[in-house]
């Protein structure tokens, strides 16, 4: 069976319980979700609702306490090669140049990189608008540029699935919107399955094909909203009447839960 025939990510009745020093903590309960190949899905929810747990389960960094997590039809038993992760903070290697940071996954996994790999890294950096900054250290780059390098690092191994854990939340509002559109641009040119964790309602609606809303702990999926906005999306999308309807619907949903 080819990849195209299967859902990229599927959670079936997934529960996750963490054992901590002060007892047990139930992060997820009965989570069912499906993300199709090349779909851009945003996961929205209050802080501490287990959004990041969802991501770590998909990445194979955690094994579920109950239920099943599948990626391309295979149960996730260990981390896979076809998944790239972008973290909330850029978490680059402070001693390595932008280019060295991008090739790092390969150097770390295989032990060495060749000139072709470096050329590929430079191409990705150029696509991220960082041409000319290849030799800069992270400390010489702005926060937005550092996160671009973080994204370039995740794209370097050319993963089918891109997991993003609130990647733009540390950036200022303007850079944040700009980065969102750049991400869409890259995603439209080279489609990937994206699981985008965020706590920003407008960011979720603006970027995603579908928004999954999670409840507070223990996290469950309480809404599955398809965003029917035309693509390509850009700054003009933010003025779209339909977008505001989606945003206010999600906001009232989250406020109702919080009240």
């Amino acid at each position, binding site marked *: 069976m080819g990849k195209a025939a299967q859902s990229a990510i599927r959670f079936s009745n997934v529960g996750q319980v963490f054992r901590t020093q002060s007892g047990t903590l139930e992060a997820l309960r009965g989570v069912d979700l499906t993300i199709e190949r090349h779909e851009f899905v945003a996961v929205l929810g209050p802080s501490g609702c287990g959004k990041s747990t969802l991501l*770590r389960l998909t*990445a*194979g*960094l955690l094994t579920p306490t109950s239920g099943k997590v599948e990626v391309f039809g295979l149960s996730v038993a*260990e*981390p896979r*090669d076809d*998944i790239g*992760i972008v*973290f*909330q*903070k850029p*978490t680059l*290697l*402070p*001693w390595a140049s932008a280019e060295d940071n991008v090739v*790092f*996954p390969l*150097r*770390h*996994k295989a*032990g060495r990189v060749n000139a072709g790999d470096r050329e590929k890294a430079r191409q990705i950096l150029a696509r991220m608008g960082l041409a000319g900054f290849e030799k800069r*250290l992270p*400390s010489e780059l702005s926060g937005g540029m550092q996160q671009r390098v973080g994204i370039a690092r995740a794209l370097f191994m050319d993963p089918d699935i891109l997991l993003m854990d609130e990647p733009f939340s540390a950036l200022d509002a303007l850079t944040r919107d700009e980065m969102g559109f750049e991400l869409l641009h890259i995603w439209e040119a080279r489609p990937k399955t994206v699981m985008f964790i965020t706590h920003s309602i407008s960011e979720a609606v603006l970027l995603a094909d579908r928004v999954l809303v999670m409840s507070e702990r223990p996290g469950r999926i309480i809404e599955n909203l398809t965003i029917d906005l035309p693509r390509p999306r850009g700054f003009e999308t933010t003025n779209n009447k339909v977008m505001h309807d989606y945003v206010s619907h999600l906001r009232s949903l989250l406020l109702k839960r919080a009240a």
Partner: protein
Amino acid sequence: MTMSHISGASSSSAPPEQRDRRQVMVRLARAPGLLPLVTLVSILIVWEVSCQVFAIPSFVLPSPTRILGGFGAIPFPRWLDHIWSTLRVALIGYVVSIVIAIPTAVMLTRSEMLSRALYPILVVIQATPVVAVAPVIIVALGSGDLPRVVITFLITFFPLVVSTTTGLLATPPELIELSRSLRAPAIREMTQIRLPFAIPYVFSALKISITLAVIGAVVAEFVAADKGIGYYIQFSTSMFQVQQAWAGLVVLVAISLALFQLVAAAQRIWFPWSIPSERS
């Protein structure tokens, strides 16, 4: 950014002559090494004048000029002999300490069992005053460099292990997850992520330990030696040649400072990224 704007605005509103004076002060404060030099020279002058005016006996406090004279008590090659003796012990002890401390720190972070088993022993070693154990070690290991190197090792080891361990554990958890998600070999997680991330911590400890190493070497010489700056200081005081002891002290301080600066320079040259920038 905002702060400098505010202070810039307030200084331009001050009267011009006051502003000029302030600018001179700012320039003086910024000249590297100028202010400390002024302080040092002032202290020396006050010291010298006090010794003369109050006629302080030189065995209580010799004046700077008398200390300078103390340098001439033995010929220059003898000085080099003493310096080399102390320096050799300090450096060998320091290097042995590094070579053992860093792998120990790696092992402590790799295995929780080992950490629980070894850590209390490390604390006991650190809690034992090295000065008190020194005579025992000298008796046990005899004369020669070995007991002195062991004493230097004991005094420098603990800060290195603790700081390196802290550094190895301070790696951003995301990078460890990245490493795990790549299913990279554990050795590379150590060499490519954890160890480099520990570099700033290691250098903090290296800077502390290099000055401790000199102390260790001197303590060992106090107990039993026939050479070395520590030996020379003790010998001079027992002969009431206090200005010579002070001269030895000055040499020790110079050695310590020079070694400290060497370590700091090594960090600047090979690991410039590990020095925290002044930008917050």
